[in-house]
């Protein structure tokens, strides 16, 4: 569904679908995981049909997320290679947060913050999968010392990941015109030119 033929394509349908599989898995995992994490969140287990179902489903959803994340990772890892321009952008991230992005260095398809987010999430994912397997008693039997370590790693990493996703989501909300990239796959040229000028130039061939 094309809204404006001049809009720029940012994500293909496959990419978007992939992202949302990861995203939905994450939401399910976060909700169910939080239920086990702190008594205050335990009522969230009701969303899954109670604590036992939450316990049963969580790791399987985790597998889904791990697999879909892996696909996503291979799709985007090359695009997320850090460059000197990213580092400079990152060093001036304060200006960006302050809402003063006019003088920020030119960015390609992803800015330094997005790339950092990408790698941080990838690391979290790796840790969550490894520690999650350790804790998955239905299928795995590992020494209790390892499980204890796994539990701490899993909980801590999950907390970090949830925080990162908060930032990820907020950034998408904050930067107007962004979310549609994951809904329809396109962004406006103005959006691209403002936030990812190098990418804009690259895809439009304009200055």
């Amino acid at each position: 569904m094309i809204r404006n033929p001049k809009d720029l394509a940012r994500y293909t349908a496959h990419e978007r679908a992939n992202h949302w599989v990861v995203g939905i898995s994450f939401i399910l995992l976060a909700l169910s995981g939080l239920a086990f994490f702190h008594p205050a969140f335990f009522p969230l287990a009701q969303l899954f049909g109670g604590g036992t179902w939450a316990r049963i489903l969580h790791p399987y959803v985790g597998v889904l997320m791990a697999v879909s994340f892996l696909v996503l990772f291979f799709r985007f890892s090359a695009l997320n290679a850090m460059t000197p321009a990213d580092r400079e952008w990152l060093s001036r991230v304060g200006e960006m947060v302050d809402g003063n992005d006019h003088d920020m260095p030119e960015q390609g398809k992803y800015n330094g913050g997005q790339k950092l987010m990408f790698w941080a999430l990838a690391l979290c994912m790796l840790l969550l999968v490894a520690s999650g397997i350790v804790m998955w008693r239905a299928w795995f039997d590992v020494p209790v010392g390892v499980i204890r370590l796994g539990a701490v790693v899993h909980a801590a990493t999950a907390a970090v990941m949830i925080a990162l996703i908060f930032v990820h989501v907020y950034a998408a909300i904050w930067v107007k015109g962004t979310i549609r990239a994951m809904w329809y796959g396109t962004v406006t040229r103005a959006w691209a030119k403002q936030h990812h000028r190098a990418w804009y130039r690259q895809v439009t061939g304009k200055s």
Partner: protein
Amino acid sequence: MALQSLDITRRSATTTPAPSVRQTTEVAKLIDVSACIGCKACQAACMEWNDIRDEIGTCHGVYDNPMDLTAKSWTVMRYAEVEQDGRLEWLIRKDGCMHCADPGCLKACPAPGAILQYANGIVDFHEEHCIGCGYCITGCPFNIPRLSKEDGKAYKCSLCSDRVAVGQAPACIKACPTGALQFGAKEQMKHYAEERIHDLQSRGYQKAGLYDPPGVGGTHVMYVLHHADQPELYSRLPNDPGISPLVSLWKGVAKPLATLALAGVALGSLFHYVTKGPNEVSKELEDELEKEDAK
């Protein structure tokens, strides 16, 4: 459980006080290893009272059977042949839940009300609330709870809380033929243990003593050991057990801190939006592009 619902000191995954108006005497099971002949009557009694029957297994080349605690074997005898200074000893220990004053299982449990600690010291699993995550196993310093392969719930010795609630001793105590198992008020059990330790010392066991490890706040199942200085001799009874620091971290400070941190990020984002406003595409750029299009 109506009787017991008034004297709960701790309830898993619950941050508010449990019904605890009723005070009861702290109880304890005392296992006098020096009087235990390893007859497994306690195992049989446990099966009978709780109406559970484990698998008929195989012989693994030792007297132990079943070989380990299971969801259907809440207590097992462990046999250790120890030869020290030319003297052979057959150290036989009844293994099972220690009913810690500071129970790692309860601390780790995420399911509200799946694990209770009564004022009398008994730590009880209420399987109907158990979600089967196995965190209790992760939390236990003695490696006691076991998940059932059949129903996915965790099981362990209840110290016959149902019997104790109506003034009966646990089934294993009732069945023990030699009096190696004793049950009563914890204070009384400690006095009794003192007598036994004194007797053992008079027989040359200078290091005889009571196993009531302070690392878990003491236990409501205690051992009289001939070699209290070497509990590991008794089929790896842990020396100075405590809740793992990892478990404390996981289920201790981490929980509120991380919750606060997440709340902070969420609120931070909100206020950022409110204070800084949305980051919209600049009007200039849009106009610029419109002009280009108009050309």
